[in-house]
């Protein structure tokens, strides 16, 4: 019977597959080897790690980013013979399931909020041999939880910058503003000229809205200063404070009108944040300015290969800002093994910082990175960080307990015409809940 033969042939296929599996077993993905900068492996401290020792790691980077990370780690792997078992995902469910089930990766690269969440399960960095002298205090503060140094600041970005086209500015006779009032006047002048000043884009999947909260936090730093923002972070200032409302209103004036931003409120809400980065540099340009973190430089370079940094695209720091807003991505360690110690020592060494800078993978908080950037825009950002008077982390990334996603939803609702007072009241409740000890 034909049917029967199908059944048994399916059986034999399965048997065959099972046989193959027992024969060869799952093949591990090796991290692709990448060319290393010629720093020489002799200075690397293997901390007793033996050749063949494994490190399992979990991170959110993929594509080009993953290749850059491999480039940074290559000298360590070559010197000590450590084998990476990497996993890449943006699904927080994976990290959480791994941790809850008692099978966390040896190290994870994730957000500052996870340091708080997993504080009881993490290894202290100084115990692992990390060199704290490589980092400025303002980078160590966000990764120190309850007095314990739990995260190695691995990658930083500056958020308080505005990207523009110097050549377009020159042609249209605009000048880079040096105070907030000048920025405000410039925006009005652009609008009066019929040039849309801002390009804004919220859309980012389940994190839709984060570009808006970044902007609002910069405005808070301009209007109220870093003390106010740190107050929000530790709960001494409520998110329903009039200072927060003022920042939202300042922002809303621009974000919700098609005179000031591409497409008005609906344009702000629906434009993917990457598209928003492109608009001032497209031809013809749809806007003049886009406020976006340092990573935007790399995205512009990728999208418009014929544009040159410095002439066709550049950035200025948000004028009149008191201190900078930035983000720090920490590496956290769940295990204490010789290989993990070697990794921590390497990444916190001057050499690790230098190699990070050379990989063109964002900014390294490590002081060893200074002067080693091969990318001009990164070098300029690195200088901005080095000279800043202060540094506040992203409110949404830092307050635990789901405040971040609530804040993103809140600003999306506000730009979509929601009632600001009730939105801020709801967020203040989330803030109090998230910060409750």
């Amino acid at each position, binding site marked *: 019977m034909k*049917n*029967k033969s199908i*059944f048994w042939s*399916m*059986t034999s*296929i*399965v048997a065959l*597959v*099972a046989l*193959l*599996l027992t024969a060869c077993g*799952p*093949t*591990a*993905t*090796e991290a*692709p*080897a*990448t*060319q290393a900068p010629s720093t020489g492996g002799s200075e690397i401290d293997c901390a007793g790690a033996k050749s063949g020792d494994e490190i399992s790691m*979990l991170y959110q*980077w*993929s*594509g*080009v*980013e*993953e*290749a850059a990370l491999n480039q940074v780690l290559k000298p360590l792997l070559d010197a000590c013979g450590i084998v990476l*078992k*990497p*996993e*890449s*995902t*943006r*699904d927080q*469910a*994976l990290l959480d*399931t*791994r941790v*809850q*089930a*008692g*099978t966390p990766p040896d190290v994870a690269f994730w957000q500052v909020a996870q340091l708080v969440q997993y504080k009881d399960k993490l290894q202290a960095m100084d115990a692992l041999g990390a060199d704290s002298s490589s980092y400025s205090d303002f980078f160590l503060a966000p990764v120190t939880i309850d007095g314990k140094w739990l995260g190695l600041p691995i990658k930083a970005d500056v958020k308080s910058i505005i990207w523009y086209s110097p*050549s*377009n500015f020159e*042609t*249209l006779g605009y000048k880079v503003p040096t105070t907030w009032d000048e920025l405000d006047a410039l925006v009005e002048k652009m609008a009066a000229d019929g040039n849309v000043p801002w390009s804004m884009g919220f859309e*980012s*999947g389940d994190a839709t809205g984060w570009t808006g909260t970044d902007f609002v936090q910069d405005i808070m730093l301009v209007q109220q200063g870093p003390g106010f923002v740190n107050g929000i972070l530790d709960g001494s200032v409520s998110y329903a404070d009039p200072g927060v409302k003022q920042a939202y209103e300042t922002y809303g004036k621009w974000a919700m009108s098609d005179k000031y931003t591409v497409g008005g409120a609906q344009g702000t809400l629906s434009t*993917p944040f*990457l*598209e928003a980065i*492109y608009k001032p540099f497209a*031809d*013809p*340009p749809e806007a003049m300015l886009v406020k976006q973190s340092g*990573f935007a430089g790399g*995205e512009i370079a*990728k999208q418009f290969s*014929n544009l040159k940094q410095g002439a066709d695209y550049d950035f200025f720091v948000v004028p009149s800002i008191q201190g900078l807003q930035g983000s720090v991505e920490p590496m956290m360690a769940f295990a204490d093994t010789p290989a993990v110690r070697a990794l921590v020592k390497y990444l916190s060494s001057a050499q690790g910082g230098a190699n990070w800078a050379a990989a063109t993978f964002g900014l390294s908080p490590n002081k060893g990175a200074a002067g080693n950037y091969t990318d001009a825009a990164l070098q300029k950002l690195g200088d901005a960080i080095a000279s800043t008077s202060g540094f506040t982390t992203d409110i949404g990334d830092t307050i635990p307990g789901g405040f971040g996603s609530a804040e993103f939803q809140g600003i999306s609702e506000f730009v979509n015409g929601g009632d600001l007072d009730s939105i801020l009241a709801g967020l203040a409740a989330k803030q109090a809940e998230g910060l409750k000890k």
Partner: protein
Amino acid sequence: MNRDQINKQLNKLPTHAIVILTMVIWAVPTLGLLVTSLRPPEAVGSSGWWTAFTTQRTAGPYETYCAECHGTDRKALPQADLTNPELIAKYSRSLQLLALLRQDINGQPHMGNMPLPTAQEAADIASYLRDDDQANSRFTLNNYIDALVGYRGRSSYTADCEAGTQPPDLKCNLSDILNPRGMGRAFINSLFVTLPATFIPILFAAFAGYAFAWLDFKGRFLLFALLVGLQVVPLQMTLVPISRFYAQTGLNGTFLGVWLFHTGFGMPYAIYLMRNFLGTLPRDLFESAYLDGATHWTVFRQLVVPLAMPAIASLGIFQFLWVWNDLLVALVFLGGTTPVMTYQISNMVTSLGSGWQVLTAAAFLSMLLPMIVFFSLQRYFVRGLLAGSVKG
């Protein structure tokens, strides 16, 4: 053709219209994906996929505004040779070009009596002068090649290989197809996951379905109702307890762990369908088999399994689709060391979402096998559900 036949055909016209219209509506979004996956990334973001078939941007605005003075070869005015790259570089973008056009030349308006081009037209002229169009072809296979070999650089695999600047994990020969970052290796992993994870639940469900339909035992209906009810349990709820258990037993990261998990979750619907189908088989068939002295096992092997082929096929395709398209279970229990296709697809873009044109090609590649399975099982498939859900 007589009048009756003509009338019959005419009466069918609305039917054809509705069927074809529905087919078009259903196919167009997927067609968009197919066309997009074949386009160069620069074109995807700047124009709709349907414009790929219409004529390309040409020298149009240049002909309209500039050719009269500068000539079609762009060299008519020696003092303003538009093929000179240094000159072009200064006016390579619309704003600069428009500013120039607004200025007077030798005391005369640059454009004479002609109106200024619009911003878009100026951009087209600038682009034409930069010779951008020649560099961009309308269709490309690069996205598919990049997806297959797992290329993750800043340009494309073919361009990098020509320039010799490919990432070190690629060798620019046929062996790249087995690159662990590519879809090739992931395809094999996906098959390893999917085939047993389709087969085992069907086998278990056939056993259980037979028991529920043709064997008598206490609490038959109650137990069956309970099992059907378990369809509602959300998968996310079970991840933590199961991985805790897997960690203790060493099943984490093994294919066996994934097969068992999919078996557990496929079971309620599979039993439901199987029992429903087997219940419609004629009773006299079983009765005569038992009268001949057959045991349950013989009946199951020689009667139930062959007769249930339609149900097995239909269940097969649904379970296959579900496992093939699953990301979460594969990610949690298999992880990144044994990547399946869905894992590779989601990792082709950066965490910021750039590079997603490769994703269009990858998504299309992952669709191919399910479609082949559907076409080859379609005959059984329809019949299986028929018997499973309809009872006289």
